[in-house]
């Protein structure tokens, strides 16, 4: 058990250094420590679930490990990481001096704790017999945030995956389009360069004239007069040129961004022709069916206020036995299939989460905010995995659910499932709306571009 935790820690460390922090040097080793630690704790939780199903280790020791891991996770998520987050954010703001950083961090952290507590109020999460500082309070709130994140990510992924992998959504981009765009960009840049050359020459000549005038034998007044009279018509045209240059630079930026977009489209089309692309396209059809079914089911769940009591495995077994007449030993097979199913879910969701995280970090990070972003991601990861454990309870047969119920306390699990459905629906519909708008906008801009010709 301890050995496997060490393995997870090392794995998280390696992933962090190699992939996420690829372009940055780590100055703050504490930050580097938090991320693998949360990763290790999350994987340990999943390992305990698997052990539960496979009945490895004694039940008593399993319970003990659960408690330890859970306490550690809670301490880190609620106390340690938010404090460091506040500290980093405040030290990044330049206006604050060194001595005040710690004080302000404490204050901000206190504010964060209050907000955190207030989150729990509007939701019917708890039965009132628990005290203030029990685990259930904190887990319930973490659960809310984590479930929100998870549901929005799933909703987004469910809609985005068919959109990116299916060929009917990809617009055709020819080489001529790209070359025409690049030519436009280079023409704009040439014009910018010419104007800047004129400005540079004018300023150079003005500098020479000023030097020559001041070192001449004429009086200072004469030099002053000359500089005023000669520079004013020049100065005006220079200012006009500078304004034109600013407008042209903005145009060049737009053209460049469009050319990036065209290249992205072309790469997607190329990828679609490869083996992997075709396979994903094929899977895309299945996935879109599955996603529409899921959206429909969550709608039904919300409307009819129904939360399933049986997990898919037992339901599958029942269907197999009653309708298809298979004569199988339910006990034996249910353990193995649920083990398999849960294992699959865990592995795919971890892998998907890791990939999404890496891509998100590349897109968003910069050298200044990299520490902050790593801390935020560690926090999100912790919350995500805790809530995943909670929701996993639904997927396991009754006899295995007890340990989770025991460990996490008596929470209103039904609420979380409903909340998940709501957020999933909202996020899926929002993603569909946004993608539709973006798709339409790109299509119309394509048509208008062919009429655009720069006139210098």
């Amino acid at each position: 058990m301890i050995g496997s935790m060490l393995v997870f820690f090392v794995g998280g460390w390696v992933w962090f250094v190699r992939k996420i922090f690829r372009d940055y040097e780590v100055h703050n080793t504490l930050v580097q420590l938090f991320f693998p630690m949360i990763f290790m704790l999350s994987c340990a939780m999943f390992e305990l679930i698997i052990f539960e199903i496979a009945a490895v280790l004694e039940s008593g020791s399993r319970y003990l490990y659960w408690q330890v891991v859970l306490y550690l996770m809670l301490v880190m998520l609620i106390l340690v990481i938010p404090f460091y987050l506040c500290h980093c954010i405040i030290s990044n703001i330049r206006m604050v001096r060194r001595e005040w950083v710690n004080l302000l961090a404490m204050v901000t952290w206190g504010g964060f704790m209050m907000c955190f507590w207030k989150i729990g109020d509007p939701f019917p999460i708890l039965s009132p017999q628990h005290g203030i500082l029990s685990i259930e309070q904190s887990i319930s709130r973490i659960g809310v945030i984590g479930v929100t994140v998870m549901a929005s990510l799933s909703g987004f992924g469910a809609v985005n995956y068919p959109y990116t992998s299916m060929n009917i959504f990809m617009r055709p981009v020819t080489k001529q389009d790209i070359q025409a765009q690049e030519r436009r960009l280079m023409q704009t840049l040439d014009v910018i360069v010419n104007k800047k050359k004129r400005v540079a020459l004018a300023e150079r000549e003005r500098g020479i004239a000023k030097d020559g005038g001041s070192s001449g034998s004429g009086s200072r007044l004469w030099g002053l007069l000359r500089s005023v009279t000669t520079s004013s018509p020049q100065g005006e045209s220079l200012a006009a040129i500078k304004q034109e240059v600013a407008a042209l630079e903005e145009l060049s930026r737009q053209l460049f961004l469009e050319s990036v977009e065209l290249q992205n489209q072309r790469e997607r089309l190329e990828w679609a022709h490869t083996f992997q692309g075709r396979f994903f396209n094929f899977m895309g059809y299945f996935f879109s069916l599955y996603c529409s079914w899921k959206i429909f089911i969550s709608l039904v769940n919300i409307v009819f206020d129904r939360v399933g009591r049986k997990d898919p495995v037992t339901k599958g077994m029942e269907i197999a036995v009653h309708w298809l007449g298979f004569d199988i030993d339910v006990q034996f097979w249910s353990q193995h299939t649920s083990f398999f199913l849960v294992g699959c879910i865990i592995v795919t969701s971890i892998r998907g989460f890791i990939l999404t995280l890496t891509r998100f970090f590349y897109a968003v990070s910069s050298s200044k905010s990299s520490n902050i972003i790593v801390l935020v991601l560690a926090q999100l990861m912790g919350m995500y995995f805790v809530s995943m454990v909670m929701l996993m309870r639904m997927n396991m047969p009754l006899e295995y659910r007890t340990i989770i119920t025991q460990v996490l306390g008596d929470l209103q699990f039904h609420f979380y499932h409903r909340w998940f459905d709501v957020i999933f629906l909202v996020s899926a519909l929002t993603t569909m709306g946004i993608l539709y708008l973006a798709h339409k906008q790109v299509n119309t801009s394509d048509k208008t571009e062919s009429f655009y010709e720069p006139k210098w």
Partner: protein
Amino acid sequence: MANHANAMSKVKILVVGDSGVGKSSLVHLMCHGEALSNSSWTIGCSIEVRVHEYREGTPSQKPYFIELWDVGGSNSHKNARHVFYNPVHGIILVHDLTNRKSQLNLRRWLAEVLLREGSGSKTRTPLVEDFDAEQFGGFSQLPVFVVGTKQDQISEYRTSGRVRSCSLADECSADEIYVNSHDQRSLAPGSSNAVKLSRFFDKVIERQQTTTTTTARTDTGYSYLERENSMYRRNKSTSAFISMG
């Protein structure tokens, strides 16, 4: 004045480096002599022009336009950047002294510019990920200059004041300077940094003059390396073609 601008010769120098190292501040300091007050991420390419006196102080002094093309370094724009890379007469590699990884990434930047293949598609061979000095034997024609920025912030991060010099600079036999882009004195005229910089500009102009006299073919669609290889082969066959420098 427009005729005058067109009559003066020009060279084009690329300024490349990782995102956030301070290329735009550096270019602004080089061209306008003052620090850039509002820095934001460069999208695409921002060009600044400087008038440089070639062979200053000698009778053959001649003013040249130096175009500094400051290419934005963010990874998501990698596939469209290649349009800026051709033609180019010199490269300034910029890295951040507080971030050692930006120095290691300079090799990738050099490879990207020399091969002019900006597409980040997965089908590309990993051969072109790193720059290897022996592999690109013909590259020595293109002058390279290395600049390390954020010199004032080193003391916050390293206890030893010594900074390891860039091994890439030694391999390319390029000059290296350290600047603080917010301080005008880093490139004050007469300082050693400014002297090295103008020596680099002179070298670029010389190379540009020799390349325009040797290559008769105009260079659309050929990458720099292909041109170099063809020139190398031509020079090998006709040994007494040109004397360099």
